[in-house]
């Protein structure tokens, strides 16, 4: 599997470390509804098809990325900087 890092270009997936599903949102405060924490920590949609996940380019620039990958075909659709995704989401 090749992942196209925005800084380093197309690199083999073993240069990266994967840290799972990028869709769960961490609750704002420790005091948030326990159900929200349960959902964030344990529950997953686990789709067959397009899936957004965190990969870090540890063997290169060390940037955190959000990769959209197909879990049935291993095809990679998009690669974005996790920072950009967070800024877009928070509107800053």
């Amino acid at each position, binding site marked *: *599997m090749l992942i196209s890092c925005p800084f380093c270009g197309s690199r*083999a*997936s*073993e240069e990266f470390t*994967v840290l*799972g*599903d990028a869709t769960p949102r961490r609750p704002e405060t420790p005091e948030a509804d326990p159900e929200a924490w*349960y*959902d964030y*920590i*344990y*529950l*997953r*949609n*686990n*789709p*067959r098809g397009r*899936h957004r*996940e965190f990969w870090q380019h540890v063997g290169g620039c060390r940037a955190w990325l959000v990769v959209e*990958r197909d*879990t*049935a*075909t*291993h095809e990679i659709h998009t690669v974005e900087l996790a920072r950009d995704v967070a800024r877009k989401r928070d509107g800053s």
Partner: protein
Amino acid sequence: MRYGWHSIVKQAFGGLACVAPAWREPEPKPAYDVVIVGGGGHGLATAYYLAKEHGVANVAVLEKGYLGSGSVGRNTTIVRSNYLLDGNVQFYEKSMQLWEGLEQDFNFNAMVSQRGVLNLYHSDAQRDAYARRGTAMRLHGIDAELLNREGVRALVPFLDFDNARFPIHGGLLQRRGGTVRHDAVAWGYARGADSRGVDLLQNCEVTGISVESGRVTGVETSRGRIACTKLGLATAGNSSRTAAMAGLKLPIESHVLQAFVSEAIKPYLDQVVTYGAGHFYVSQSDKGGLVFGGDIDGYNSYAQRGNLPIVEHVIEAGVAMLPGVSRLRLLRSWGGIMDMSMDGSPIIDKTPVEGLYLNCGWCYGGFKATPASGWCFAHTIARDAPHALNAKFRLDRFRGGRVIDERGGGARPNLH
């Protein structure tokens, strides 16, 4: 037909004309008391024990492909009960005991081979952890022996004992552990269930689950609608997808685990051996090939194939442990899809939907659990309450903080 010496003699003289198919190919009935989704080891075992232990015979098993085409046909055949934590210890020992009587029970040769499972340790800390595990096992009446270096050398002399980074100091041995012919497990349970009246429906994919006012009423399938009073999901690998049809979101991710087999060689390795310094386990099949595997690929996958980095990683660990295999050729590799649960332990439970039961989250240890999983799931479905052996494998344990985290890895599906 009952298999035994008399049937062998009869067939020897009668040609193969009298060999009957091991199970029927029935048409789906419009309704069943219990429908089990998933014709793998766990689903078939569940149907078998439903009929045999609970007298529930109006049962159908729905399989989207052919029987045993999922993970029961894609694993490394190891059985063991060397667990540490309360809940796991009792459950896996029950499974071990069922393995020991399985062939007599379902009258089918599953090639149960108690050749021993040896876990190597490489440091004082690891030895202490294995001593603790072995003690926990023995407190529950399960066999365990802590071997020193010479004890291991006597069993497996060709390991790399003097590896500069990870010298082998000893191992934890469970002699009752071993291997079982995995396809035969599916076939034996299928045949046993069929002969007790269970309908095994192949090429029957479930596309929807009907729920009316909080209660399951049936399933939509590629072979039409089938009504049922109780519905059991035993669809490991695809549990999130089947549970979602009933509106449930699970603490599970699907990951691929690869396994490998080498070309056949003469008898070489008697036991199942696992490497404590890296993730690697190996045994020799009765055909002579070395069967081995290692870590999951580590990212969500529904593809029944893996990627090359793990192939390299597994083989590096294998050659570090057994340098003598470095010139063997790899015959083939395959990948099975695992339900990785968030604490590394399975779920066998009722669900918030009435009449819907769940059997999932086996991570990559589902094969050894097959008999006890079917046993407990059948009990849970028939009695509408968990058996004492699966009372801790509840779905709500995550919400309540009663996780069973054998590895101590925390809430990470890709760590177990």
